[in-house]
């Protein structure tokens, strides 16, 4: 994180307009052209197309001609109990698994690993990262096997003489949240490990000399210093969690009774099972909105200076 001192050439530019403007500018921008073309074609294009489709009643099949329906898809969404249920579950899933789970656990692991011996560090890091590099679907099957009625978790509970139950049935949203924590903590851990390594030793030592204990050092020194990393991590985590699909699909298919049907699953059901591409796309745009709301909150939190 380098300080952004004003670039000398940028400050000079207005005094010498010929250097920045005039016939040379298009030529200077030319090398960017391929990238811009690619971005427009493959990024902006589909997004704009999605934006358009969300205002039509386009179906994958079962329709001779689509038509423009204005805001119908959006008003329909807000009157649709299943949609509201999906929004609520998405928030629960995101707060539980990303904000609380991955973020805190990642930070805790990173902090603890700094004090651990090298073999312990390597081993823990290895295990956590393995969960992360597994394909989403594989992770989904592993956790399905863990939580199902004859699964590992219940075997352990039985062994401890604790009551067992079908977790995917009784507490589906909690089970999939846990699965997401299991899978995604590695990312936070890596981000925080890097951030903690950037804190100069002298500052921590000075705080220690001043008599600050572990918790106070964490609260007053470490956390403020890695605030930017926390923000970045939260934002990336949240955006990734909002779009989790495969994991939940494999474990519960959004069930039972829609009790783990987050927005991506709802969207999939509408678009590809009910063939309502227009409606599904509108829901996708709303999901984008939820994501940007989260991002705005994080950006605001970050703005206050140290």
């Amino acid at each position, binding site marked *: 994180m380098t300080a952004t001192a004003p670039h000398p050439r940028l400050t000079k530019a207005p005094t010498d307009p010929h250097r920045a403007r005039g016939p040379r500018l298009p030529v200077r921008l030319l090398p960017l052209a391929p990238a811009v073309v690619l971005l427009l074609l493959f990024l902006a294009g589909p997004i704009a197309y999605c934006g358009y489709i969300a205002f039509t009643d386009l179906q994958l099949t079962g329709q001779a001609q689509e038509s423009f329906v204005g805001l119908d898809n959006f008003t329909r969404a807000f009157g649709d109990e299943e949609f509201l249920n999906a929004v609520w579950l998405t928030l629960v899933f995101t707060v539980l698994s990303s904000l609380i789970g991955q973020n805190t656990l990642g930070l805790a692991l990173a902090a603890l690993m700094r004090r651990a011996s090298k073999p312990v560090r390597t081993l823990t890091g290895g295990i956590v990262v393995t969960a992360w590099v597994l394909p989403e679907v594989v992770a989904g099957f592993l956790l399905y096997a863990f939580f199902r009625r004859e699964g590992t978790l219940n075997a352990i509970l039985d062994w401890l003489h604790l009551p067992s139950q079908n977790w995917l049935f009784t507490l589906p949203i909690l089970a999939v949240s846990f699965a997401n924590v299991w899978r995604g903590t590695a990312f936070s851990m890596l981000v925080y490990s890097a951030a903690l390594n950037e804190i100069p030793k002298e500052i921590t030592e000075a705080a220690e000399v001043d008599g600050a204990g572990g918790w106070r050092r964490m609260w007053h020194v470490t956390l403020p210093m890695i605030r930017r990393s926390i923000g970045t991590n939260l934002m990336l985590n949240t955006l990734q969690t909002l779009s989790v699909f495969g994991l939940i699909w494999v474990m519960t298919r959004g*069930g039972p009774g829609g009790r783990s049907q987050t927005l991506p699953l709802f969207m999939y059901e509408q678009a590809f099972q009910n063939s309502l591409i227009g409606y599904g796309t509108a829901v996708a745009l709303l999901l984008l909105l939820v994501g940007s709301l989260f991002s705005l909150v994080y950006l605001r939190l970050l703005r206050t200076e140290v």
Partner: protein
Amino acid sequence: MPVRPTAALLPALLVAATLTACGGGSGSDPDTVRVSFKQSTDNSVKVMDTYLADIKKQFEKAHPGKKVELVPIKAPDSEYYTKLQQMLRSPKTAPDLVYEDTFLINSDITSGYLKPLDPYLAKWPDWNRFIDTAKAAAKGEDGKTYGVPDGTDTRGLWFSKDIFAKAGLPADWQPKTWNDVLDAARTIKKKVPGVIPLNVYTGKPVGEAATMQTFEMLLYGTTDGGTDPLYDKASKKWIAGGQGFEDALSFVETVYEEKLGPDVSDALDPNVMTRVRGEWLPQGELGIALDGSWLPQDWLPGSGHEWPEWSRVLGLAAMPTQHGQAPGKVSMSGGWTWSIPAKAANPDLAFDFIRTMQTKANAQKWYIANSGIAVREDVAEDPAYAGAQPGIKFFTDLVAATHYRPAYPAYPKVSTAIQEAMESVTTGDASVEEATSAYTDALKDATDNQVVER
């Protein structure tokens, strides 16, 4: 840094050239038939591939100078439809021949993706050999036919003779009414503890299997066998939940309320279908299963879970009508058809390929290879077909009492609404009356209010 404009333009030009090249591929070679089909996601299952390779060889021999290009789509069902529908939208990607599920064919007809085959069928004598219900399976709302079925499936009751013996039930069991089925399950529950008496699929996690293998098997058994309880053909409207609908839901409710079925959490597990075929039936943990004719496909040699003894261990019974009213038994049928896309480049050649597949000998080969049920009378009557596998004769005889779904464009949504109603009575979240009225609301929503009370 000085930049020569040409150097900067070059990559852009290259990109543009590549992109144009991408769009240039087309299937308009007049001598090649491009055939799209659903390839099994299981690498060890090559039934369709082998069969089509054989037809390709026959076709190319009989049509010198013509070529067949097989275009497999390797995907599970729902993704296959999605991929196919995307291909059908454009003449550049549309193949000459596609393999369509009757579940969705009417949606694709409405979308204008498919070509009516009537002019071809009129000149094809073999078409008269197809049974009438099967002919209707690929008929659009406009009365034209859009596909040639390559077989069908039927559904019935599978039961474990071992468990029946322990429960004191007969080995040649044939229930006459729904109550007979429930009573058998109650007897098993009482006399053979530790097994699941009866499995009926339910709820959204199992999807269309819940609608078709369970609900419609019940619902179509509440009528006189001739009237469609879901869709009114005369007014072209869907039928609101009535007495028959409530009775069918009550059956499901009874099974789960009296704990005659699997544990609710297992019943609503998306993998329950695999467990029925792979664990519960082969391991003798399930008394009665309401399921489809294709089960033995999973137990064939080379499938990874061979179970050749099944025909000794399991008995088969037709699903009875509600009170035993005529025709006494009920079955549902689906299946796949071969269709020609509206945007196909070589439709004539494509129909020739269908004709090659549907010679009597080739059709018979196919039914036997994929545990399919014949839709051609001449094959159904052939002893070589009926004796090819245990169970084939039983399930072929059910064709006489079978129903096809009203697979109109709204059907997938209607099916989801049915699954939701089933799920809510299975979990006990709603009473039968509540679930039925919720169904009627969902039905109005799914069909733009094209609903009629009856």
